[in-house]
């Protein structure tokens, strides 16, 4: 799942005391992927050469 810098996640935590609390976590550090961004969709297939019937 793509995380973004600065995004705030609300997560629930079961404490040792038995209660469940909600905490907000703000993402402040996220390594960047290397290389060019991947396309969201698969590339179009290569055109297929056709041979005319003679």
């Amino acid at each position, binding site marked *: 799942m*793509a995380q973004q810098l600065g995004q705030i996640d609300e997560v629930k935590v*079961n404490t040792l005391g038995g209660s469940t609390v909600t905490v907000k976590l703000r993402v402040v550090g*996220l390594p960047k992927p290397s290389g060019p961004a991947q396309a969201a969709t698969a590339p179009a297939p290569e055109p297929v050469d056709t041979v005319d019937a003679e």
Partner: protein
Amino acid sequence: MTDAVAGSVLGDDCKLYYSATLGGSGVLTEIPVIIDDTLASERRAVESNCRGDAEIGELIGKPKHTISGTLLVKRDTAGVGATFSALRDAYVNGTILHFAMATGDITHVGQYVFRLEGRLKRFEQSNPDNDTVKVSFEITHAGENTYASNFSTVTA
């Protein structure tokens, strides 16, 4: 076994939480007593030794994150215990869990939290004395998991 009491052993109570729900949306459960929890993060690197260079440089690649630590449980007549069972089963079955490692109580504003989804790579149990079971463990990011490990701060 029951959970060891915080502060009763070595006086150190680190904070590590886990959830079986992935994607960062699950309910985190605190692992009762963890000591010496450690985040190892190192970027892979290759040396650059090209013609014309006056010195060796390093090309820095992606980071590899590993969480390690030691779980303490108390030997008694109460059986294995829920925390021990959950982590052991995750190790045996290769289950990916969501982990959150905090510099303090995760409910306290300002704490620093590292989150990672991965597997227990190592589960090393020792029974060093008549009272304690120690499990030294190591967690690495699961290669097929797409949740990006990240650092966060607890905000109000």
